[in-house]
């Protein structure tokens, strides 16, 4: 990705770097794709030739945000999204990197598909970290080739979209992934309990006459995975936490020394099942939107460190999958462009500090995936996200960068967004 581009002097910004404990106004110099220095100010004579100065007064300068859970749909469903369009949406949303889930067609369960994804991403405006499949074809029967996947560039393995039903297979996956330093990302769902459900089970599902997905469908499998992770002494990452019970289980597991990490998506701390209204398929996801109590528990988990990361679960679908009967509609919404604005609402509400936000979007995803990033230390790769907390905007259809527009947030007014994204010292998105 590195190519010759002018050095950048980013000055007057509020630099937020939780790893070094920095939160102050200073300047950062970027040269040759790396952070060349940090300081109160740089003398003009000390700047490299051709350096461009960008004034970030009133903005936050953060280590690059990493969305560790997206669906780019390529290969196989390019009418919904491509690696090119999805990474453009990522850059526009303030992300310097994304980890893409393997439920493509074909499933990314082998080196060939991983290599194809990375080849397509070579000139993309965001780094792409492929996640390989836990099982061949994500069928939940036999382990995929983790060694080959790792060698080709996969950073983790997951059967996301489908749970690993067989406990023995999950145990073996945890053990074998350890040989290659790959973390398992678990989509925790008991299919017997979720059955043909299409929304959270409760008063509202009864009123709408829709089949419910009870909360234990998630909790039971989260406990199974925590139990197996403890037993095998391997790390596990729980994807898209949606229930208060899951938050409590993860808190308990962490207190007991299990290597468990977790992410949630902005819709789980923003919306409840009420968003379904009159059968709005843009509020249909898996796990389903839950209740106010769950939203409160997830916010608390984000604040106290129980939940490690915010990931969008960006799931593009066309009207062919969404403008249909609720029972038949596909799960999921796009999220790359709204994740940061929605999380900034939590900062505005006092739920999260600015430093905690950066941990959730940058420091922790980098650590969990084992990739470079999450730091503004001198010499670190110059992947940077700049946020303007005061930028007010209405998210309209015309603004959508993703190839799909399946989001319930169209028309919503946001306060704050990413206004400059830099990857390898190169500007990938700017609306300063």
């Amino acid at each position, binding site marked *: 990705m590195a190519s010759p581009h002018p050095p950048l002097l980013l000055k007057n910004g509020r630099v937020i770097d939780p790893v070094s404990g920095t939160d102050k106004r200073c300047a950062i110099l970027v040269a040759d794709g790396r952070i060349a220095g940090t300081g109160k100010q740089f003398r003009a004579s000390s700047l490299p030739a051709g350096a461009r100065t960008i004034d970030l007064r009133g903005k936050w300068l953060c280590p690059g945000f990493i969305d560790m859970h997206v669906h780019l749909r390529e290969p196989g469903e390019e009418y919904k999204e491509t690696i090119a369009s999805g990474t453009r949406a990522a850059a526009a949303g303030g992300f310097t990197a994304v980890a893409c889930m393997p439920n493509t067609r074909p499933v990314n369960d082998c080196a060939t598909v991983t290599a194809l994804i990375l080849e397509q991403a070579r000139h993309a405006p965001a780094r792409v970290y492929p996640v390989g499949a836990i099982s061949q074809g994500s069928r939940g029967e036999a382990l995929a080739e983790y060694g080959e996947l790792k060698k080709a560039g996969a950073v983790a393995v997951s059967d996301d979209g489908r749970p690993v039903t067989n406990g023995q297979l999950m145990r073996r996956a945890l053990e074998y992934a350890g040989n290659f330093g790959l973390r398992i990302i678990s989509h925790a769902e008991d299919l017997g309990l979720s059955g043909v459900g299409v929304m959270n089970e409760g*008063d509202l599902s009864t009123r709408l006459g*829709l089949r*419910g997905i009870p909360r234990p469908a998630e909790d039971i499998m989260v406990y199974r995975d925590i139990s197996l992770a403890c037993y095998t002494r391997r790390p596990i990452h729980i994807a898209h936490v949606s229930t208060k019970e899951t938050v409590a289980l993860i808190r308990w597991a962490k207190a007991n020394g299990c290597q468990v990490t977790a992410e949630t998506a902005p819709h789980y701390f923003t919306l409840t099942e009420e968003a379904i209204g009159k059968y709005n398929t843009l509020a249909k996801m898996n796990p389903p939107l839950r209740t106010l109590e769950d939203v409160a528990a997830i916010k608390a988990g984000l604040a106290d460190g129980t939940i490690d990361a915010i990931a969008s679960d960006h799931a593009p679908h066309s009207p062919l999958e969404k*403008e249909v*009967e*609720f029972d038949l509609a596909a799960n999921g919404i796009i999220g790359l462009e709204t994740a940061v604005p929605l999380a900034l609402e939590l900062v505005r509400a006092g739920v999260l500090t600015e430093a905690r936000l950066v941990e959730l979007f940058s420091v922790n995803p980098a650590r969990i995936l084992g990739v470079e990033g999450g730091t503004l230390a001198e010499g670190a790769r110059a992947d940077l996200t700049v946020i303007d907390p005061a930028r007010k905007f209405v998210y309209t259809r015309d603004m959508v960068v993703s190839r799909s527009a399946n989001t319930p947030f169209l028309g919503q007014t946001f306060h704050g967004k990413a206004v400059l994204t830099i990857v390898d010292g190169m500007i990938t998105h700017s609306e300063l």
Partner: protein
Amino acid sequence: MTMEAAHRFPHKHLLSLEDLSRDDIGLVLSVAASLKEISTRSIKKVPTLRGKTVINLFFEPSTRTRLSFEIAAKRMSADTYNIAAATSSARKGESLVDTARNLAAMAPDVIVIRHACSGTPQLLTNHIDASVINAGDGAHEHPSQGLLDLMTVQEHKGRIAGLTVAIIGDIAHSRVAHSNIIGFTKMGARVRVAGPATLIPPGIARLGAQVCSTMHEAVDNADVVMALRIQTERQNESLVPSLREYARFFGISSRTIAAAKPDAIIMHPGPINRGVELDPALADGPRSVILEQVTNGVAVRMALLYLIMGGN
């Protein structure tokens, strides 16, 4: 028509009884009561809806409801067309939205839809100008059935407010139960439900029903006892062990009904699994109003078509 309605029907569509006010329901029932007489004439037809087009769009098999809507429309002189899923383009993979747009292009006035997926009538309204009447969507609602049940009780008891209605059986999957719970509670009746706990959904109390743990508790001193059809596939979903056990413990028999008021009426939305949810002797006995429900179905649907197409 000579109907003098103090209250105008303010709805373009009929998607659920949740959307109707007490006054709206009262209006439908009074219009239905006056239209009922038409079906007793030797020439069972009035010209009220001449030139109007009604399409019955049925994605689920139905004999009674589809025929009832068709007869209702024809007695009001509307032109009716029936589309059954088996012969429609749904089988060819056309989406519902495309079907809706194509129907809209043929300018119908009313589309009566039945569909296995809850919320489908709502989806139809987003893509079509015609009025939409929900003839049953998934486990959501069957509002015209709720209205005809209210009409039948009103005829027999002279009122609805203050009555006790027991609904027995598969509450979880029954759109009839949902519309009836909403309709009867809205009109001031008390509704109790009972059945296997596997078939009592969460939040049913929020709809206004009192959940009873025994049949006796539900039926005790009731004015109306309504049995619901139990689908045979519930056995395969581990919701009931067998129809035999269901009939023995949750079927309505003369023993169960003994706890109800002496003049209690017995209702069923049909079709009946005789000997499973309802003892055949009761279904055919003097307290059964099951066939009156069917007769009133035509009157209620005539009233709905009339009111939805703008009254007079």
